[in-house]
């Protein structure tokens, strides 16, 4: 076997360093989840747990509403991801391939939306949900009830459409050759069927990329969820639950539990990523080579 090229060695060294930098915090968190309360309080602190508390992972489910949090997180994040994929793909395809009056203006509006950070919209959207007519006990004028606040709709609907998703999907749709779409038209496919059978499979790497982005972002979302689930703890998601734990327990005895909960909260994201990474990597490099 030929000895590896020195440059290749350097490259591997750099990659190893990067991987360590990424993995160490997780490892630290994982170790922390295995400590006993005594080990946590000992001075100096015990770093390597002598008696790994695997039970901590089970206790999280026994002593905290972990199952509810997890279910809420999975449901809300999946719903947002699915909705965004649908709306982004459809709008992106339309903006990329249909020449109708106003397309350019709409594209500008989509891009203009990025100027408004979500934090700016928290209060207006809050009031929109609060005073929505005829729902959540409200009358026709949006008075009398609490609107959609404290419902799954409040967690999902504000994120059903995103300018970023639309723009990203438009870029991927631009890569679908016009002739292929024309060929499908001549082959007798209607417009919606073309979208389903030709365009969607061809932008799959884009969908996977967007899917991961959206899933990870909303899996970790805290601010909005806290805002609308105040007084509806049954709707709290995993990150919100863990976040609130910190305040609820002043002492450090539950730190191991918190860390165990965090470890569990990372798992679904890892699963999604592992499932989609094949497409994700292709998506990031798509367009770099003329296919």
């Amino acid at each position, binding site marked *: 076997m030929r000895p590896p090229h020195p440059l290749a060695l350097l490259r591997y060294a750099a990659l190893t360093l990067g991987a360590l930098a990424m993995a160490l915090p997780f490892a630290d968190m994982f170790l922390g989840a295995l400590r006993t309360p005594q080990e946590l309080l000992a001075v100096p602190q015990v770093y390597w747990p002598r008696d790994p508390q695997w039970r901590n992972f089970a206790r999280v489910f026994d002593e905290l509403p972990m199952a509810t949090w997890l279910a809420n997180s999975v449901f809300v994040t999946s719903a947002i991801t699915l909705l965004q994929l649908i709306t982004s793909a459809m709008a992106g395809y339309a903006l990329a391939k249909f020449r109708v009056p106003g397309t350019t203006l709409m594209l500008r509006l989509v891009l203009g939306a990025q100027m408004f950070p979500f934090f700016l919209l928290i209060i207006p959207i809050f009031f929109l949900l609060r005073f929505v007519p005829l729902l959540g006990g409200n009358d026709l004028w949006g008075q009398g009830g609490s609107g959609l606040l404290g419902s799954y709709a409040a967690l999902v609907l504000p994120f059903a459409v995103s300018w970023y998703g639309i723009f990203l999907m438009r870029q991927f749709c631009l890569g679908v*050759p016009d*002739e*292929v779409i*024309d060929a*499908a*038209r001549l082959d007798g*496919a*209607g417009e919606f069927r073309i979208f389903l059978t030709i365009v969607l499979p061809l932008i799959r790497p884009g969908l996977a990329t967007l899917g991961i982005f959206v899933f990870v972002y909303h899996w970790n979302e805290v601010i909005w969820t806290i805002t609308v689930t105040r007084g509806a703890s049954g709707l709290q998601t995993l990150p919100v639950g863990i976040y609130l734990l910190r305040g609820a327990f002043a002492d450090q005895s539950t730190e191991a539990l918190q860390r165990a909960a965090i470890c569990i909260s990372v798992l679904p994201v890892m699963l999604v990523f592992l499932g989609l990474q094949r497409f994700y990597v292709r998506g990031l490099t798509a367009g770099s080579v003329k*296919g």
Partner: protein
Amino acid sequence: MSVATVSLSGVGKAFGPATILHDVSIEVAHGEFVALVGPSGSGKSTLLRMIAGLEEVTSGEIRIDGRVVNDVPAKARDVAMVFQNYALYPHMTVAQNLGFALRMRRLPRAEIGRRVGEVARSLNLEELLDRYPRQLSGGERQRVATGRAIVRQPQVFLFDEPLSNLDAALRVHVRAELRALHRKVGVASIYVTHDQVEAMTMADRIVVLRGGRIEQIGAPLDLYDRPASIFVATFIGSPAMNLLSGIRTGDTLVTPDGVALPIRTDCLGKEGEPLTLGIRPEHVLLAADGVALRVEAVEQTGADTMIMARLGAAEVTVVRRERIDVAPGAHVHVQLPQEHHHYFDAEGRRLPAL
């Protein structure tokens, strides 16, 4: 002749203020193979896309099998098209590509399988049915694209420069294949190309387009023998027809360099007015005396000798089916036999002989 399969009457197309097709009328009979030729920008591809239903018709009428289809969407026109870049569905196998149109029509699976198999056999694609387009060579992709059109058994085939992405040798081969296929299937075909050789060798009739207008319609050899204009004369035939311009003076054409070339007495060009004499390279005869040309370049292909020479400012090409030993810079004498003369007026229109 029965009802034309495709009939265009007074068809025009405008993109905003730019009109790119003017008053185009063409009839394509059942089983006929018609080539649309013209330089880029002549509107030939747009015309094809209008027949396909991919572009809207600004004015005039398009009929397919007697039915006006101006407002009929592409999917309902029963027209198949082979695209220049083949436009195969990248995520489908060859078999799925071939069967897509049939699936769209909800034919039974067995029927789809049978027809796909039949087409694959006739186009030698059987080995490739499970491959994806990216795993195919250019020639194979071309065959799949053709197969995808045939499998539907449409009323009309449209070809948009289907051979231009193939290398020269393959192009000649596929050209012959497409011809044979057309003879077998016998469906009206409209074939867009900028390659006049393709048009000459494949088409029953050629439509020459220029700047969105029909310049001439006719059988290939009619276009070759009686071009309606200087444009057609130079577009059809390779190397192009020689053109010698001057003023008609008696029974001669006097070039700007003062050379007097005898012309036919029945030429309709008016005395003292500009006249262009056209003569094909293979009709120019080398002779011991006659018009003197200065040789600029000589190309030997083995079978032919092509001499590029000048008569004053005008270029004259001579092609002879023999080996001629002549060097650039030398002079040769040529005869321009009058029975092979073409005459064109100042606007470039053909002047009929009396």
